[in-house]
């Protein structure tokens, strides 16, 4: 049956180049090979997000008067609506965690080095997009926590020098977080971000397939010295391993959705007093807590402005890493960037934990 279908397509599309690619493609086998699977797992969760997101769209209504009620309807009245919403929420969080893990694995293994600069660029922008998905999606249930967290979050965007106030107004659709903000975030979450993400994922995958898997610098040196690196066939050996990892992720998401249902909270009331303990999602906690610790004025500048500019510079540094790390590009060890990656990881973990417990 499968063969018949392939032959039918081959007659019409000439699949010989693809057949050749699949038959010949190999994946290097070495001690750090396990990190290869993180990208695939992240992509699988993106697929889960698209699938569950489309199902949620069937009932979700993006207005300040109906959003909360529609999510409430989904989780209480729609058959298996609770499961879809729980999976969407948990999968989103797991996706960002895996995206960060993928990012750090690539950083530590220096897989961004020449000729994979473009792959890194598409990847880092995908990471930013995932954070954008998280930020825009958080507001959509229109509950108390998400409403006030969005107020704080868009307020931070407003602290960017020069373009900040304009950006904040564009994000909010006015001076404050209102139904207009919800409409914008909805559009961003279900149309603009998915369109850009799909294009970038395609480019990222294409580059990965074209350039093959990167190997750590030390192994590359051995390879250059004449050692033959063992390979496994991409199809079916590697693909089956990838699918196995996806199933493990699916099992984790299903277990979390079943045993830790995602709370809906109370409907947002713009006139209510800000409830205590307002904080963003965990992946923004480190940044949020850092901004809280920055003094109100540093060397005559507003502390918050400086903090936001500093984060902007860090983002720019991350984008430019492949072009800054010349040693790695030459195939040499670059301990400075390893230390920077380690410091970044420690900072994120420590400040996220402190931010979680801070009052």
């Amino acid at each position, binding site marked *: 049956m499968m063969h018949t279908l392939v032959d039918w397509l081959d007659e019409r599309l000439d699949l010989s180049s693809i057949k050749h690619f699949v038959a010949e493609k190999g994946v290097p086998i070495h001690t750090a090979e396990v990190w290869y699977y993180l990208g695939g797992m992240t992509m699988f969760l993106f697929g889960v997000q698209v699938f569950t997101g489309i199902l949620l769209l069937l009932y979700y209504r993006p207005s300040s008067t109906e959003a909360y009620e529609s999510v409430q309807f989904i989780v209480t009245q729609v058959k298996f609506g609770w499961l879809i919403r729980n999976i969407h929420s948990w999968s989103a969080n797991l996706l960002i965690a895996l995206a960060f893990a993928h990012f750090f694995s690539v950083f530590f293994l220096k897989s961004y080095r020449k000729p994979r600069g473009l792959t890194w660029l598409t990847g880092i922008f995908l990471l930013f997009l995932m954070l954008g998905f998280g930020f825009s999606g958080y507001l959509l249930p229109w509950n108390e926590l998400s409403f006030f967290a969005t107020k704080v979050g868009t307020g931070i965007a407003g602290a960017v020098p020069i373009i900040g106030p304009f950006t904040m107004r564009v994000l909010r659709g006015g001076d404050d977080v209102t139904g207009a903000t919800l409409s914008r975030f909805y559009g961003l979450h279900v149309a603009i971000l998915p369109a850009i993400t799909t294009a970038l994922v395609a480019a990222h995958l294409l580059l990965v397939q074209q350039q093959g898997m990167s190997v750590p610098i030390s192994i590359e040196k051995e390879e250059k010295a004449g050692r033959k690196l063992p390979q*496994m066939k991409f199809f*079916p*050996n590697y693909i089956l391993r990838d699918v196995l990892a996806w199933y493990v992720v*699916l099992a984790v998401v*299903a277990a979390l959705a*079943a*045993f830790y249902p995602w709370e809906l909270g109370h409907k947002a009331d713009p006139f209510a007093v800000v409830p205590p303990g307002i904080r963003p999602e965990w992946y923004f906690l480190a940044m949020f807590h850092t901004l809280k610790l920055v003094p109100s004025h540093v060397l005559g500048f507003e502390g918050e402005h400086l903090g936001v500019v500093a984060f902007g510079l860090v983002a720019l540094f991350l984008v430019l890493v492949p072009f800054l790390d010349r040693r790695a590009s030459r195939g040499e060890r670059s301990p400075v960037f390893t230390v920077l990656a380690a410091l970044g990881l420690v900072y994120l973990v420590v400040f996220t934990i402190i931010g979680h417990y801070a009052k």
Partner: protein
Amino acid sequence: MLQIIRRVLMILSAMALCASSHASAQPAPAANTCLACHSTLTDAKLTTPAKLFSGPDVHRERGFACVDCHGGDPAAGDKARAHDAARGFTGAPAGQVQIATCARCHSDATLMRRFAPKQRVDQAAEYATSVHGKQLAAGHTNVATCASCHGPHGIRLVSDAKSPVFPTNVAATCATCHADQRHMAEYSLPDGKPLPTNQFADYQKSVHYSALTKGNDLSAPTCNDCHGNHGAAPPGVGAVANVCGTCHAIFAAKFQTSVHAQIFDKGCVECHGNHAVLKPSDDMLGSTGHAVCATCHSGADDKGAVAADGMRRGLEELKLGIGKSGELISRVGNAGIDVSNQELALTEARSRLTLARTEMHAANLPAVNAILAEGTTILTGVDRAGQDGVAELRFRRRGLAISLGAILLLVVALGLKVRQLDRRSHP
């Protein structure tokens, strides 16, 4: 020399007043040399009135001047003519003269209609009926008169938060005299006992004070809400329930139907106290421990004790039930089961608890039990729905456990397949 400078300043001020009145389109006010002169004096007792009257003062803002209360000639350039008794100068009015001075306008309905049409005009008449007024009539000049509470100058509207008679300031204003042992030493209660001075301290412990100052509830009672303001006097025996009933109407009505209404001399005060009215709790009910009923009722033969204990037991059972059902519903709700109807029912059960507490003031055990039974019936329905929710959750988890099992089987199968492929690739 000083005298000359003062006169020159006075004349210049008068000229400035005239000049400004010409420049204005408003009718020219009479020149007021009182302020000009008094603001240059060195004695604080004489300058303070001018300073206060020049600041925020409801009378000055409505066009009144010193002459309207003190008389004299405000246009006169020298003190003798300005303070001439023949020109109506009265000095600082005190005692009955002060009452009469204020009443000249404030008891004139026609005049007051021009400035504050909704304001009452019987303050002076009320004052005459007050303890303050009666003591003044009896010759005690140390008692409170209008200026004691409202201030003599710099008088603000009652609605002004800085006014000494603004709701949040009333108690402190009364306390300036009533918490002063030396001031109150010359007065005594009708039975001859010394007049207490701890009312303010007691009031500060009360739920009323807390609501007023911490809860920002300006309708919460302060001194004048129970004692009256211009006609201030302690509520007489038998009138206490009426006083409390102005706000706590239902409690008062229930109390009037109770056997206690015939027995309690001081009405509500018997159980709740007067100035130190604490937040009531169910602990006040019953015949043991710190319960207020225990003051009179104890023992199994005492019908009152049996009723009090019965009511307390019922209240505690319903409270406990509401707590347990609330926890169940919250757990089920957080897990994504619709519990909006049960939350509504819980609100109903809480209403029954409140109603039972209200009914308790009639000291009627069967009536209280009937309300509590309604609450218990509501809770039974809530619990049933809660258990259904728990069953649904169990079903969901079982379903997911089966799914997880299937996924894990697939993972194992894939793992075996991968191993088989690897063996074939690298025999």
